[in-house]
């Protein structure tokens, strides 16, 4: 099982951050999730990042990029990716709350 990201469907609600954080610590916070939203608010440039064991999925509005560990990104999403480096990677949990509470199908589980 892995999680696929379709960033064009994202409405930046952040349910995924809440869901993943809750899965980890059984509390509501946005701080411990493996998935993280980013937003350049005035430009309305937003999407999400998912930290995995060996890489990171960068779900940008213009498309998805898989960034291998240690690779730098030339995009702005790379700059705001910093805090996610400190987080736990996605452990591909079953019935993931990030997917179950995503209202748009931006995040889906695939085998």
């Amino acid at each position: 099982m892995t999680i696929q990201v379709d960033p064009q469907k994202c409405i930046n609600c952040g349910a995924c951050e809440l869901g993943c954080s809750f899965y980890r610590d059984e509390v509501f916070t946005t701080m411990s999730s493996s998935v993280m939203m980013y937003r350049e608010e005035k430009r309305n440039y937003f999407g999400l990042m998912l930290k995995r064991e060996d890489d990171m999925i960068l779900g940008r509005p213009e498309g998805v990029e898989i960034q291998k560990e240690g690779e730098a990104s030339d995009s702005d999403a790379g700059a705001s990716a910093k805090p996610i480096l400190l987080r736990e990677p996605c452990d591909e949990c079953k019935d993931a709350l990030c997917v179950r509470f995503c209202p748009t199908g931006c995040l889906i589980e695939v085998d």
Partner: protein
Amino acid sequence: MDNMYTEYYLVVDLATGEAEEIELEEEFVQEYVGGAKLNMALYEEHKDGDPIVLGTGLLTGTLVPGSCLGVITAKSPVTGKVAHAPFTWSAGAELKLTGYSFVVIKNKAANPTYLWLHDEIADFVDASELWGKNTWDAVDVIRDEQGEDRIQLLSIGKAGENKLSTAMITNNYWGTGDRFGFGALFGEKNLKSVAMRGMGELEVDDPDAFIEKTKSVFDDVKSQVGDAKGLDAIDYAKIPADLKDAAKKQLHRVEADFNSPLAYKFFLKYREDPSVMLSTDVEEPGVLVSDPIGYAAIANAGVVPADAGEVLEAMFKLGLNPVAVASKLTAKDKAGAIAELEKFAESSEADKFDAVFSPIAPMSDRTEAAYIAGICPVLVAKAEALNADIFAELASIGTGLDFKADAFKM
């Protein structure tokens, strides 16, 4: 409170520069629940200081759909009554996660100040340099000063500084549901902004049961909301056909409030091709229509539809309530309308109206419950699954206390 709320709430005295943490006791929550109702109890307690109470509901910041709501309670310069206005986007949840589920702001600062709430700390920061700046510049300066781009802000522009009853508290670069001139109260208190960053966490009495119930509510809400989004998300906004056509040509992306499935907000780009998805060097490409009712009001006032977004942007920058000022516009084009708005921000004209809850969405018997529970009234207008019975059940599971549906009535 051990669960669902933070341990403390905060009473800020702008006159003395002191902030006192007070324990949020279980008995108090059992009696007043939260949101508008608990805000009201705090307002009464601190009435002598003409307080602005910022509060959250028991469900704010949780996974319950629409958990974005924060409530501003204060005496309205427009109606003369104590009234409740919503702030949503990410600010409601952010407030709770700062460590303070409720903040009472009383008296008046000697000099322009902004309140910086983060990690159970309240800082009073000198805002002399910010006074006179528009709301967008204030956001940029404060985020830069505090080094965090996820800081959520409730601020005022020139209209609030000049204590106009047409003033609106803004949320970051956009609008709030403040139709009560609360922006003027910020101005009265020399308060430029309340900046919030929440890294806290909320505990739950029975996590498994809470998630299970929340998921079933989420499924119901999703089916009731359906596929409607953006320009078609809320029909009561009554966006005229010609404005819809103009907006479609500028439409960039649709967006929702924090943890809401209803993407009723939409971003218009008019300084850049709206199909551009990249982050370009155009720093201010357009506006987030956070307030479709206000947007419609601009076109209904006769402004050319293609210019309505830019006029809305000017209102947000000046911190003007679109519904209150739109009807006063006489110019039809953006340059003329924006020039008039600049003047309004220096005037004292306002429409008077009579309401207690902000008319950001149609009132129903569930709206009042939502203002107490901390659930977005715009989503509630669409989703009948969000009602007092459900709020009581979730509140009971989450806290381990016993709440009945009638607790969610003022």
